[in-house]
């Protein structure tokens, strides 16, 4: 038993070294995120906006959870419904782990998206999703911190739409900005990465 305890510490380091040199991530103990991963991860810039639940919404509030942070607006005709439906499917697949994952959706359209409107819209996808809105200046500051593009475009009908960044950030339990999931990835990819970020280091 003593020998069995001695071997793993020594042998596992050797195996991990060989595996990392050979590029075998699974053996090297470094499972890959499906999303694009940042290295080193930095602390996700915090913000204080108005939550769709009526309370002040900060990232600090969700320490201990994995946060999936997206940007969009409730009148979005195509991108946001797809992203939110995918995130809702991922939440359902996560089962009991879903309580440790929080979806936060920040509007790029504060003129139309007040807290009540965001609440109604997001709850149609999943009852636990939270929206965030605020002044144009506050939202622009958040977008700048996260490198989010949002451009207002006039429609022929006299209304307007937004062209906006469509990816979703993954923030770990410690509040670090770990990865970016491109638009169009499957719910299974979100589940895979959320489980990875939920698992102990």
């Amino acid at each position, binding site marked *: 038993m003593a020998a069995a305890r001695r071997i793993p510490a020594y042998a596992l380091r050797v195996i991990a070294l060989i595996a990392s040199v050979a*590029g075998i991530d699974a053996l090297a103990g470094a499972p890959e995120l499906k999303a*694009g*991963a940042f290295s080193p991860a930095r602390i996700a810039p915090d913000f204080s906006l108005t939550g769709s639940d009526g309370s002040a919404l900060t990232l600090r509030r969700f320490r201990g959870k994995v946060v999936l942070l997206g940007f969009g607006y409730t009148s979005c005709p195509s991108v946001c419904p797809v992203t939110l439906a995918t995130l809702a499917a991922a939440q359902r697949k996560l089962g009991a782990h879903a309580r440790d994952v929080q979806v936060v959706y920040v509007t790029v359209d504060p003129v139309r998206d007040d807290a009540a409107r965001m609440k109604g819209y997001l709850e149609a996808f999943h009852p636990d999703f939270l929206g965030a809105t605020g002044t144009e200046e506050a939202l622009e500051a958040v977008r700048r911190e996260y*490198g989010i593009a949002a451009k207002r475009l006039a429609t022929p009908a006299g209304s307007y739409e937004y062209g906006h960044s*469509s990816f979703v950030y993954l923030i770990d339990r410690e509040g670090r900005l770990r990865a*970016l999931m491109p638009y169009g990835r499957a719910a299974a990819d979100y589940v895979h990465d959320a489980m990875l970020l939920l698992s102990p280091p």
Partner: protein
Amino acid sequence: MSLLGVPIALVIGIVAWAALAPVPPGPREEVFEIPNGTWARRMSGDPVEILPSKIHLTLGVRDVLLLRNLDDVPQVFGPTIMMPGQSFRLPFELASDYQFECSAHASGQMTVVVAPKPRSPWTRLRWRAGNFWRAVT
């Protein structure tokens, strides 16, 4: 062998190699780096282009996009903002054309074309011809 015979044999040999030789394993990452001093060059009016507007990857061969910001200021690079010294590693598992917003390009878009792994002689030939063409143009 006639004078024409040698080049014809050479072409046949190259085509046969391109079609039949297995695709060699190599680094999976296609790396793009923002060198130190890029921001200063841009500020002085030099329109530095780091990322092409179209990037070609191949599943099972080179299917990971790796971006590095070696500059000493944050940079919008590809789809995201990157801190000094930070890297961004994005693996692909499905062959498709992926569109990313990218404010570094005039079009505001960057496309990553991910091709399936070339398995048959014909697809290997086309894959190698495409790589060659992109390298010389």
